[in-house]
């Protein structure tokens, strides 16, 4: 058997291939993005990006209704967008197996919240599997499709950042080839969710979860590992690995299925150990259910509801709780060092725009993407950021609460991919209700933050094939926005003039910037300009160029007590000329 080191995401893609999946759809979102990017390595699967997670899940639902096995992938907050179809899909059930992969991000490495998706499985009354390494990612994906068809249910597979972006060894298998051929079959009572039909389906959902609970007791993915009876730990996913690391002698009930729970297995395990612990990240999801069974258990009384766990964090909590002896080694205290937060790239087309928004004292309702970094100093030009698409609708709401002179300061900033995701609906509202705010669409021709994925307006599909390209300006006009201006964000004078004019206008307007992301490779969509240098004789050390926060521009203090000067790193400069336009002394050329 072939073995390979795969990330959790690569292994889920492999599992989908081996399970005979025919259709896969997703919207990119860290830490889930690489699943679909790896699915395209398997030509047997029709894989594509959708404009948002709701659409992605509905594409998968359609494929399932056609009789094919279908996969949808998203990050945790994406499930909020896809929740509408998800909850009714629970009632219809499936024809071909359907698996929804959700990648949670405890610790918020790259997210705006750390909601615990296990609650969705309980809420929607569907099973959820949680793998603990890449091998399980692949095997559980395969199993999820079997379960989906066996119990006529969508199945959620939950990953977390440490699983999706962790790698471990996987044994590769073959693709199943005995699945029934997809075909149209009329089954309105099951698939048309009108009240009359839905009332018949709901009891089946309740019955299904009981049957799944019975299955969970015998399932080998839920296993009890008996070692010392002093301490028993119930855990799942990556936390299982941490517990093995920190408590090698403890007995463990490892749950591969986190919803529904195997009650008899839990009761049996609890009866065999003297102290029962649940160790889980985020919510007391398992703990509360174990408590509801009437079993004495320790969980969030010790462990935090916030952030991710790690071997070290579990160790120190158990130390403080008296369940582990105090360690003798005192850790080296971390000292204060210059921090290194993420930053927009040198040459990023967003930088000059945020500089201007700061100078114009705009109140910026922001959105989700690289440009959220416009919040950071020295640009300091973002005032709100809630969720995908919210920039436009919150701007629309905020102007309605303000007097006219304050309304003029409100600018919504959104990227092209986020605009396509849910910003379009928001702009529809703004146009319809004539909210006097300015919308700035930073069109860099790509979904940049997640690693450069195509969008409906970039002209290519997930596979890199040419595709129809939505004209964003025409779309805005079609929605009813009369004032639509396109501007080159590298031209500060022109961009400033457009911003000032549109901000003063007492009706909705849209400004679109048109420079591609400087990291786009392949089709030469981004071109470097002439690399710039600071003339050390002309530089007066006024620091105007430093206000851009460009990683290529460095302050060089003088050693002889005189004023310092700036320096441009020629390896980082892309020649965007934005700093050159800020220099009043003609020192950058």
């Amino acid at each position: 058997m072939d073995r390979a080191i795969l990330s959790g995401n690569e292994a889920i893609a492999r599992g989908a291939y081996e399970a005979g999946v025919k259709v896969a759809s997703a919207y990119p979102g860290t830490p889930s993005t690489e699943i679909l990017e790896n699915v395209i390595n398997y030509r047997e699967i029709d894989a594509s990006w959708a404009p948002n997670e709701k659409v992605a899940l509905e594409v998968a639902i359609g494929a399932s209704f056609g009789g094919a096995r279908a996969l949808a992938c998203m990050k945790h907050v994406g499930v909020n967008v896809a929740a509408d179809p998800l909850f009714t899909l629970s009632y219809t059930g499936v024809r071909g197996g359907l698996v929804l992969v959700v990648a949670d991000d405890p610790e918020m490495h790259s997210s705006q919240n750390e909601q615990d998706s296990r609650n969705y499985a309980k809420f929607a009354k569907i099973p959820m599997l949680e793998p603990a390494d890449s091998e399980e990612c692949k095997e559980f994906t395969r199993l999820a499709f079997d379960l989906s068809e066996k119990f006529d249910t969508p199945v959620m597979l939950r990953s977390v950042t440490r699983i999706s972006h962790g790698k471990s060894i996987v044994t590769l298998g073959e693709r199943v080839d005995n699945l029934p051929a997809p075909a149209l079959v009329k089954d309105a009572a099951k698939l048309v969710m009108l009240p009359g039909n839905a009332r018949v389906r709901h009891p089946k959902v309740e019955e299904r979860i009981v049957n799944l609970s019975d299955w969970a007791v015998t399932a080998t993915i839920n296993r009890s590992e008996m070692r010392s009876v002093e301490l028993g730990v119930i855990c799942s996913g990556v936390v299982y690995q941490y517990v093995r690391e920190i408590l090698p002698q403890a007995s463990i009930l490892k749950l591969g299925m986190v919803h529904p729970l195997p009650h008899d297995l839990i009761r049996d395990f609890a009866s065999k150990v003297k102290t029962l612990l649940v160790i889980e990240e985020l919510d007391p999801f398992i703990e509360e259910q174990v408590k509801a069974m009437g079993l004495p258990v320790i969980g969030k009384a010790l462990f935090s509801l916030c952030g991710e766990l790690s071997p070290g964090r579990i160790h120190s909590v158990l130390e403080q709780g008296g369940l582990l002896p105090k360690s003798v080694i005192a850790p080296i205290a971390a000292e204060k060092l210059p921090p290194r937060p993420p930053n927009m790239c040198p040459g990023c087309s967003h930088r000059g725009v945020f500089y201007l928004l700061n100078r114009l004292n705009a109140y910026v309702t922001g959105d989700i993407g690289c440009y959220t970094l416009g919040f950071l100093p020295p640009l300091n030009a973002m005032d709100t950021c809630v969720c995908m698409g919210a920039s436009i609708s919150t701007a629309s709401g905020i102007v309605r609460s303000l007097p006219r002179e304050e309304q003029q300061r409100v600018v919504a900033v959104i990227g092209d991919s986020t605009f396509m995701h849910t910003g379009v609906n928001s702009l529809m509202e703004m146009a319809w209700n004539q909210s006097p705010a300015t919308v700035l669409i930073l069109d860099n021709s790509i979904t940049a933050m997640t690693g450069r994925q195509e969008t409906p307006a970039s002209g290519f599909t997930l596979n890199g094939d040419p595709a129809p390209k939505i004209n964003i300006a025409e779309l805005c006009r079609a929605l009813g926005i009369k004032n639509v201006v396109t501007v080159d964000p590298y031209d500060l004078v022109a961009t400033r003039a457009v911003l000032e004019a549109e901000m003063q206008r007492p009706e909705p307007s849209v400004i679109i910037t048109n420079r591609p992301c400087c990291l786009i490779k392949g089709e030469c969509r981004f071109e470097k300009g002439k690399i710039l240098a600071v003339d050390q004789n002309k530089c007066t050390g006024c620091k105007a160029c430093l206000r851009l926060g460009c990683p290529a521009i460095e302050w060089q203090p003088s050693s002889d007590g005189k004023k310092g000067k700036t320096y441009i790193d020629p390896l980082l400069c892309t020649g965007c000329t934005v700093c050159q336009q800020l220099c009043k002394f003609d020192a950058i050329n």
Partner: protein
Amino acid sequence: MNDKVTNILLVGVGGQGTLLASEILSETFMLAGFDVKKSEIHGMSQRGGSVVSHVRFGRQVASPTVPEGEGDVLFGFELLEAYRYLPLLHAGAKVVVNDYRIPPPSVLLGQEVYPDDLADRIRSRFPDFLLVDGLHLATDAGNPKAANTVLLGAVSKRLEIAEEHWLAALKKMVPAKALEVNIRAFQMGRAL
């Protein structure tokens, strides 16, 4: 083969190539017959932020992340980042760092100073410390872009894995046209 798991941390600045280096390490350990796990963060921190990859190998590895204070080897791509992550190591750990500085935003803006004695400070705490002029050596090997491979060679010398597995992993992970330069860079690092 004993049960001890070896813990390696690769630290640097987003975009420096820590990911590829950690892939080559993992591949090597798998080829040498070990269980391997690795963990890293993608996404937001890629944008010029501080990054850390964990690679662990042994007969059987549980956690994909290195337990705090148990790092055996630190593979630093940048001095300040190497220094930042020293608390993850145990007292006898081996440290290999590229002699390369990337000023963080506060230093670029002139608000803070990039400490100039980091190498000495690392050496005083970790006697098994090697500072590598990766860029210079890689240029000698034929391409300044192979600096990470020089570092990899130096790290390889500090791990008990046969050279054949390193070379096989390089052959698998490095594009064919860059292989010769990278093998030369690797050997130069290994000779340090």
